[in-house]
């Protein structure tokens, strides 16, 4: 079978898990969980990083330099202009030219502001960034972000850190159907069932932090998520059966005949 890889901004990826680096109980558990997850892309908030010495940053210092693609995010920004300024800072520091646009205007829900997100995406694409906007799960908006030049579009399953899972699987399904760039479910996932569901809906990957970092055993959960994504992806590629109202004998009558 052909190797099941995918691409963002010209980079070929095998893993379908983007992992956040925050919230881990300690550096040891963080390092081991990253290993166990198999993630190739790691994400973090630019405002939390010491950009003048990223290799000595309190979180990034524990991560092997050069081994991962970094996806810095603009969390904390509440307008497109702010997000653009933060993105430029991150690129100037040499961390990465990938950027996750994350703009929220409400400190309680942290839900993305769709209009500012679209504006920031347009601007950052113009400036040559590889842009991955985090957005609400609106199919039309996701298409508009793609048309604006997003390298991948990342609709949320539920508000950040809630672990509520995919609140509107119908929308995620529609978004995938319409998309011609990778769709990544970002935020709100809680369990392996949620990531398997996302993958069965046909998304290209998932991004998470809290469900791994805040699990009782983050290292074990990182592995569980990796396997859940793989299982969901294989299930999607295999094609599930149609749902039926009544039973169908799995052995069939022919199998019962005596020869």
């Amino acid at each position: 079978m052909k190797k099941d890889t995918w691409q963002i901004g010209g980079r070929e990826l095998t893993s379908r898990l983007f992992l956040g680096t925050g919230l881990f109980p300690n550096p040891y558990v963080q390092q081991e969980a990253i290993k166990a997850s198999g993630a190739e892309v790691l994400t973090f908030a630019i405002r939390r990083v010491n950009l003048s010495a990223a290799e000595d940053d309190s979180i990034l210092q524990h991560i092997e330099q050069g081994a991962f693609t970094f996806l810095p995010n603009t969390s904390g920004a509440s307008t497109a202009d702010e997000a653009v300024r933060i993105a430029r800072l991150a690129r100037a520091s040499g961390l990465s030219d990938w950027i996750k646009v994350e703009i929220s205007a409400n400190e309680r829900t942290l839900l993305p502001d769709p209009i500012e997100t679209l504006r920031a995406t347009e601007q950052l694409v113009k400036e040559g960034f590889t842009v991955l906007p985090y957005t609400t799960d609106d199919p039309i908006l996701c298409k508009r972000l793609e048309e604006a030049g997003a390298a991948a579009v990342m609709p949320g399953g539920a508000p950040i850190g809630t672990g509520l899972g995919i609140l509107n699987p119908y929308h995620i399904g529609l978004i995938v159907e319409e998309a011609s760039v990778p769709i990544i479910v970002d935020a709100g996932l809680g369990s392996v069932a949620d990531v398997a569901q996302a993958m069965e809906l046909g998304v290209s990957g998932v991004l998470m932090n809290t469900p791994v970092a805040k699990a009782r055993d983050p290292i074990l959960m990182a592995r569980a998520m990796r396997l859940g994504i793989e299982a969901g992806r294989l299930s999607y590629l295999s094609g599930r059966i149609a749902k039926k109202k009544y039973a169908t004998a799995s052995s069939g009558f022919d199998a019962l005949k005596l020869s």
Partner: protein
Amino acid sequence: MSEHIIIMGGGVIGLSVAFELQSRGYQTTVLEMARCGGQASGAAAGMLAPYSENVEGPDPFFQLCLDSLRLYPDWIGRVRERSDVTFEYSESGSLYLSYHEADRLALEGRLLWQREHGSTGAIIDGPDLFDMEPLLSRQVKAALYTPEESHLYAPDYVRALEDACRSTGGAIHEQLGRVSVLEWRNGIVLEAQDGRRFSGDRLVVCSGAWAQELAETFDLPLPIYPIRGQICAYALDDVAGDVDGKAVRHMLFGNQGYLVAKANGTLVCGASEDVAGFDTSVTERGIERLRGWNKQAIPALENCAPFHQWAGLRPSTQDGYPFLGGLDPAAQVMFAAGHYRNGILLSPITAKLVADRIENKALPSYYSYFAPGRFDMS
């Protein structure tokens, strides 16, 4: 005759548990493999800062930290009553620094829930901020001020606890080397490396990162990892320049580390964390990291060199929560270990909860989150 309780570990947790139990009329014996306060406890910067150390939300760990902070004034009074060793306890308040306009949203979100939990904090910016803290970098955009937070001088505090234990009749044995548990199902028997045996009615394990060595004895997963924390200290006079009065007035926190000025004229800067097993040596990278960061908080530090640097092992569990509670239904064996960065802060509440459990008193609702058996899912 009162119950005799054996305590493994003479760090800040073991000594606090011993002092509390002695105060309640129990007979305690502390068994320490090296010397009291020789690891994480003596290396700590002594910050009592539940709000600055828990920025995400009011989880059970924050509740535990907050309850402990609230016990402090009374607890300090009790320790001072029983010990001649003096120690600094300073209700300085803290400033959590932010450098990006984008941090404002995070600070506001934090303030929102922290004000519901006893903080009278506020976001301070502009001239007000630099009036409060004159040496602060003008690159600091805003800070979250939390008046409730305080700090103490950890090495002296640990010595005072040790003294308070002895003066209330507690026994302390140091330099025991490896201590093994020979019996725990019917009475408690422990053996030191030189063959000396200690027996009692109950055991409280307070041996920090070394508690993991008991996993086999109790047939229980006890995932605690030693995380090395490196710290350095400056002479405050070198930093102060011509500032009138106290040069650094609040604890300063940022997402890269902290600075705290002590009454003995030092400015303590921490901490660089890394994973190095039980190695407590200081590394050049660890200290240079601090020096690279701290001038972003106080620019005058650029031209100063630390006169002292050290490292301690902070015991962190798999989920970051300490082990606190009984192993068996009768709590004949109890754990109070794995307090990571917050051992000093958590010492009064840990002592109280261990003693309350032994006396079958009511326990707070969050207590069960810290059960030492929680990693045993089989």
